[in-house]
């Protein structure tokens, strides 16, 4: 798999809600080869003293248009700086990087669980699952209604509303999304139509919980992990994750790992 380092003109960069932004760039080589769950390593211009790139999940890759969408939460200097970019600016980005979601052979029913901006790298997976004819149940959790920024895209891809929760109860179930995950797994077990795949991305405590629920239900589960990263291409060994097979690089051995491999 070839990596590209593209100078990517910014086409749009807007706040979608609650300090969560959407950036669309033109990066035809990355757009043409990206697979669900992969990420890009972005050099944001004008950051001078902040020398490292920022890893961002690919929210959407449009082969025809040659565009890549990234969803990011404003958390620090880099993402704060990103919000100042507008059409006419450009970022440099390496991609598409990493091991993405690997849907098990013969998958018929999938449960996709996203917390916060974790909904971004899961969205291309939902599209792929739907295209393959897999029945998808999707659970989206967020802090508040304005942070459920991916809800409409998920709805359009699924052809139905995703199951949602908000911590403050402004939309859907009030509280964390984990009871919704439990319920979905229980209903599947009761109906006899078991899930054969769970994919989860979000805060690590959420992924850990979902992984243990999936394990209890006997369903294969993958999670997408995030670590501080320097090179983004597998050379520096900064971003390692503890796994049952030893330390693995989040950037190229992941970011998606089978949950049973992760030592939490």
């Amino acid at each position, binding site marked *: 798999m070839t990596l590209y380092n593209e100078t990517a003109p910014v086409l749009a960069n807007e706040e979608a809600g609650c300090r969560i932004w959407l950036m669309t760039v033109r990066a035809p080589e990355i757009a043409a080869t990206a697979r669900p769950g992969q990420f890009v390593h972005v050099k944001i211009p004008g950051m001078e003293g902040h020398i490292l790139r920022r890893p961002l999940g690919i929210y959407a890759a449009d082969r025809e248009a040659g565009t890549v969408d990234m969803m990011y939460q404003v958390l620090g200097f880099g993402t704060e700086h990103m919000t100042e970019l507008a059409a006419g600016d450009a970022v440099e980005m390496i991609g598409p990087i990493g091991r993405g979601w690997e849907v098990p052979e013969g998958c018929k029913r999938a449960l996709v669980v996203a917390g916060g901006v974790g909904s971004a790298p899961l969205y291309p997976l939902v599209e792929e699952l739907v295209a393959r004819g897999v029945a998808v149940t999707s659970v989206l959790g967020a802090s508040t209604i304005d942070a459920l920024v991916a809800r409409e895209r998920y709805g359009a891809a699924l052809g139905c509303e995703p199951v949602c929760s908000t911590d403050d109860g402004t939309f859907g179930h009030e509280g964390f999304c984990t009871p919704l995950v439990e319920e979905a797994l229980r209903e599947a077990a009761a109906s006899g139509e078991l899930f054969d795949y769970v994919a989860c991305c979000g805060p690590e405590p959420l992924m850990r919980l979902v992984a243990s629920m999936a394990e209890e239900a006997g369903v294969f589960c993958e999670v997408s992990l995030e670590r501080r990263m320097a090179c983004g291409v597998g050379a520096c060994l900064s*971003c390692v994750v503890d796994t049952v097979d030893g330390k693995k690089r989040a950037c190229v051995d992941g970011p998606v790992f089978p949950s049973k491999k992760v030592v939490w």
Partner: protein
Amino acid sequence: MSREPRATNVNLAVNLGGLAMKNPVTVASGTFGAGMEYHDFVNVATLGAVTTKGVSLNGWEGNASPRIAETASGMLNSIGLQNPGVQHLKDIELPWLESIGATTIVNVSGHSFDEYVSVIEALEEAPVDAYEVNISCPNVDAGGMTMGCHVPSVEKVVGLCRAATKRPLIVKLTPNVTDVAEIARAAEAAGADAISLINTLLGMAVDARTRKPLLARVVGGFSGPAVKPVALRMVWQVAGAVSVPVLGMGGISSGTDAVEFMLAGATAVAVGTANFCNPTATVDVIDGIIDYCESQGVSDVNELIGGLLC
């Protein structure tokens, strides 16, 4: 598209203590893997040399995470020399480097005097063009003290490595010493063919909000553009103290940076942290050296070595 340096009439070839380099640019150990990870971006066979990530005898697991932190114009790392051991290097990386025609420097690490020797012995039949001995490791034979901070330890480890090979032997110095010239002279006297410096500066970073260190190991190695003045100063001091050639590194990200190191006395240079920000940094540096030489009427890059006017 994999980049290569542009064509030029300037002679770029240098000789680093017996190691013939087609141009004066290699990479700092640990920032480039063994080149495979960067081959989509630059043709690593066109570099003066590829310096591989530090290798120990049976491999090390490395340190806990988080292992890096970004700081002003630089970064801290505490990877802990994670590596899968010398056999893996022999089985996978070295044959690959040989197959593409790369010039290869293997960075050798150890936790004891014997371990350095064992690594070199394991590599003597392998396609390696030179060794770089990393003496910034803690030494279990001396109570965990950093080998490169202690003259008798430097003499001993360099002497043992020298006896183990006839290949060019580069000794990489830590900057975390009082008198780097004294350490360099000890390495030269014990048989080093070249001196490389600087390894990272010991530093730390704190998150005031959480009141916690940013690195799991609290302290780590500081690198990046911020360290360049310190590195230049030490290269200049060492080049003046020894007669063997110097491989200079520390914050190099452009051709101009590289030229500055050569003027200060370096025969060759290494690109390190810049690889993380810019995956074509190595070729950009070579092209920048060519630009400089052409615009300054320099026909041979060797003319730059030690050319500082002061």
